[in-house]
C-alpha cells in the first residue's frame, strides 16, 4: 500500500527537519518529501495530516517477548504486533528466555521467527552464561550473530569481579554492556518501594539505595577498566539520576533509560494491593518522578523504554507478595509520554523523538533513519492532540497486565511504516 501524508509536521533530528511537509511512501521507500505537492499515483491513500507528526520509527530497547520458553505470556509474533500497534518499528528483546539467549542457536531461532515483520526485532544476549552471574557469555560470537547488547536483565550481576571481567572483555570490541541494577542482598522478597507506603501496607521494601549502590559500583568499574561503555536499564530513583548526571559530566560513556510507568505512577497507588502495580524496579515516590522527568529534560536520561513484561492473568491475579513483577508497556508508552511529558510542557516533540527513536538507535549503533527520496521508509506517525481512553481489550499483546486501563490520555500513535509494510494503529 502506498500512502501520502499531506501537510504533516515532519520531525527528524537526523536530517534537521522540523517543518510541515508532504511525504509520499511508495513500495516501502520514500518516493517524495518536500513542500510542493507530489505527483502521486492513483493507488495511493492520501491522509490529510494537520494534527499528525511524522518521525523516524520509534525504537523500544527493552522488551520481553518471552519466546522461547513462556509463549503463553507472549511470543515474537504477538509481541511484534503489540509493538507495531503501539507505534514502534523496532525493539530490543531481553535475553531472560528459557533457554536464555546465551548462544547463537537461540539468537538464530528468534531471528528466524522475526522475519518478514514490520517491526525490526533486535536481540540482546546474556552477560553471563545461563544468567548465573558466574562466567561471562561468548560475547564475540554472539555479536557476530547480531547481538547488540549484553545484560542479565531480570537479575543483577552481583559479583564485582565478574562485572569487571565483563567490562574488560566487552571493551576489546567496544561492545555494549547493560545492567539491571539491584543489590539483591537488600531486596530479597520485596513487593514495593521501601518507604512510608510499604511500611504502612506491611509490604517488604526495595530501598532506592539498592539500585544506586550497583549503578555507583558499575560506573566505578567501567571507569577503572578504561571508560567502557555502560547502559543502565530502567532507572527509577532520584539518586540514580544524580549519580548518572555526575558521571556524564566527568565524561564517562554512560547511557540510561526510563520507563513510562516510572515517570507516571508513584507508590501511592499501591493501597489497593492491585498486582498490576507490581514491577521491578518498583514504583517509587513523587520526588523520584520529578527527578526522572528533570533527567529526561536535561539529557541525563537518554531514552524511554517500556520494559514490556507480559504475564498472564492467572499469574497476576494472586496475593500481592506472590505476584510476578512486571507490566506490559508497548501499547501505552507513546500515549503516556505524549500526555505526561509533552502535553505537560516538559519535553518538546523534537526531544521526545530523540528519546524514543534517535537515542536508542544511537546507543545500539543501529543505522540512521534519513527522510530522503529513495531511502527505506521507517516511520512512526502520531497525533499529539488526539484524546482517547486506554482500553486493554484493543491491545495486540497476549497479556493484559497494564495499570493504565481506562486512563484518559492526549496523544496516540496513528501509523507505523517499515519493511514495506504499513500498520494503522488501533487503540
Amino acid at each position: 500500500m502506498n500512502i501520502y501524508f499531506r501537510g504533516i509536521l515532519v520531525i527528524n533530528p537526523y536530517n534537521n527537519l522540523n517543518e510541515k511537509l508532504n511525504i509520499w511512501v511508495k513500495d516501502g521507500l520514500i518516493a517524495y518529501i518536500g513542500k510542493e505537492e507530489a505527483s502521486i499515483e492513483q493507488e495511493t491513500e492520501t491522509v490529510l495530516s494537520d494534527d499528525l507528526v511524522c518521525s523516524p520509527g520509534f525504537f523500544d530497547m527493552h522488551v520481553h517477548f518471552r519466546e522461547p520458553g513462556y509463549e503463553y505470556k507472549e511470543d515474537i509474533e504477538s509481541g511484534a504486533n503489540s509493538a507495531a500497534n503501539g507505534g514502534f518499528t523496532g525493539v530490543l528483546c531481553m535475553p531472560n528466555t528459557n533457554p536464555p539467549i546465551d548462544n547463537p542457536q537461540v539468537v538464530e531461532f528468534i531471528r528466524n521467527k522475526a522475519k518478514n515483520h514490520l517491526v525490526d526485532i533486535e536481540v540482546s544476549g546474556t552477560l553471563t552464561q545461563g544468567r548465573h552471574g558466574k562466567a561471562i557469555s561468548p560475547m564475540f560470537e554472539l555479536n557476530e550473530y547480531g547481538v547488540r547488547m549484553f545484560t542479565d536483565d531480570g537479575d543483577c550481576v552481583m559479583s564485582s569481579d565478574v562485572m569487571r571481567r565483563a567490562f574488560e572483555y566487552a571493551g576489546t570490541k567496544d561492545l555494549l554492556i547493560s545492567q539491571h541494577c539491584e543489590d539483591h542482598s537488600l531486596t530479597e522478597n520485596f513487593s514495593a518501594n521501601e518507604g512510608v507506603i510499604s511500611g504502612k501496607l506491611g509490604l517488604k521494601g526495595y530501598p532506592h539505595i539498592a539500585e544506586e549502590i550497583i549503578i555507583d559500583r558499575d560506573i566505578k568499574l567501567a571507569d577503572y577498566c578504561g571508560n567502557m561503555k555502560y547502559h543502565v536499564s530502567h532507572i527509577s530513583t532520584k539518586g540514580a539520576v544524580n549519580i548518572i548526571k555526575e558521571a556524564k559530566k566527568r565524561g564517562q560513556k554512560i547511557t540510561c533509560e526510563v520507563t513510562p510507568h516510572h515517570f507516571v505512577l508513584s507508590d501511592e497507588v499501591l493501597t489497593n494491593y492491585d498486582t498490576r502495580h507490581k514491577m521491578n524496579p518498583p514504583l517509587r515516590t513523587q520526588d523520584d518522578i520529578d527527578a526522572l522527568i528533570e533527567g529526561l529534560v536535561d539529557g541525563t536520561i537518554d531514552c524511554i523504554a517500556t520494559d514490556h513484561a507480559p504475564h498472564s492473568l492467572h499469574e497476576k491475579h494472586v496475593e500481592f507478595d506472590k505476584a510476578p513483577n512486571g507490566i506490559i508497556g508497548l501499547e501505552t508508552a507513546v500515549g503516556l509520554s505524549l500526555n505526561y511529558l509533552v502535553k505537560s510542557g516538559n519535553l518538546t516533540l523534537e526531544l521526545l523523538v530523540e528519546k524514543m527513536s534517535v537515542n536508542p538507535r544511537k546507543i545500539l549503533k543501529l543505522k540512521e533513519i534519513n527522510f530522503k527520496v529513495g531511502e527505506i521508509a521507517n516511520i512512526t506517525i502520531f497525533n499529539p492532540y488526539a484524546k482517547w481512553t486506554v482500553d486493554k481489550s484493543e491491545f495486540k499483546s497476549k497479556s493484559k497486565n497494564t495499570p493504565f486501563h481506562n486512563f484518559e490520555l492526549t496523544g496516540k500513535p496513528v501509523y507505523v511504516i517499515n519493511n514495506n509494510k504499513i500498520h494503522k494503529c488501533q487503540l
Partner: protein
Amino acid sequence: MSDQLLSHPYLHTADDLSYEDIQLVFSKAQYFLENYKPGVKFDDLKGMTIALAFFENSTRTRLSFELAAKRLSGEVFSFAAAQSSLAKGESLIDTFRTIEAMTVHMYVIRHGSSGVPRFLQNNSNSIIINAGDGKHEHPTQSLLDAFTLQKYFGKVKDLKVCIVGDILHSRVARSNVTMLNTLGAEVGVLAPGTLLPFGWQTWKVKPMATIEEAIEWSDVILMLRLQRERMESGLLPSNREFSNYYGVDLKRFNSKPNLVLLHPGPVNFGVELDYEISALPNVLIETQVTHGVFIRMALLSLLSKFVKI
C-alpha cells in the same frame, strides 16, 4: 442505637472505623457482655452463613470468631488451608470463588500475605472481615485491646500506651497505632532499629529510647510477640539480648505501680515477658481474650445489617 450502621460494609483496616463506629462496636459489645448467659443464644446472624477462612494458623482468633458467630445463631464453617485444594496448587482466588459459590454472607479471613482481604474484596460483594493479614493489619485485635482499656480505665482518651517489640512485622501494632489515635490516646513505640518499619517517623507515635523510659512514660505497655524467625533473619543478635533490653520482668513491672500490661498472645515467656508476672492483676492478657469474643459478636452483629437475604 439498633438502627445505626457502621461506615463500611466490611472491616479491612483500623482506618475503616471512625470514632463513632468504634463507640458503636463498644456499646454493642457491652450489651452482649451484660446479657450473655450460658445456654442463651442471640439471633442476629440467623439464616446467615459465615466462613472462617484461615490460610494461616491461629488459635484464639479463630475460636473467638467461631464462638461469637455461633452465639449469634450464625451458620459457621471453617476452612483450614492445610486440608484444602490449596495444598493441591489451587490459587487463592479460585479457592475463594469455590467457597463463594456455596452462598456465604460473611467471611473472616486470616492470611500470611499483606492485603489479601482487600484483594478478595476487590473480587467480591460479600462482607469481608480481616482477622490478620501478613504484616499489615489485625483490626479486631485493636478493637478488643481498646475495649479492654476502656473497661479498665473508663476511657481511652489521653491514655499513654507504649507498643514494645517487633513493630516491623506486627499487624497488631499497625492497627493499634491507628485505632488508639482515633480514640485520642497517646501512642509510644519502643523497638530496636531493625524491628521498626521504614518511615515510622511519619506515624503518629512518640519514640522511646529504653524500656525504663517507656515504663516511666506509660499507663499501658502493649507488648508484642517476638517471633523466633527474627533471630535467623539477622535482625537481632539473640533472644537474650532482646530480653535484656526490651523484655518486661517482675522488677521492671513492679517499678511502676498501676502499670497495665497487654499482650495479643501467644506469649513467648522468658523472651518478652517473665512467666511470673502473667498472673498479676494488672496484666490483662486473659481479659483481652474474654473481651475478644464479645467484640467479635458486636462486629458480626453490626456488619450483618448490611447482609441482604
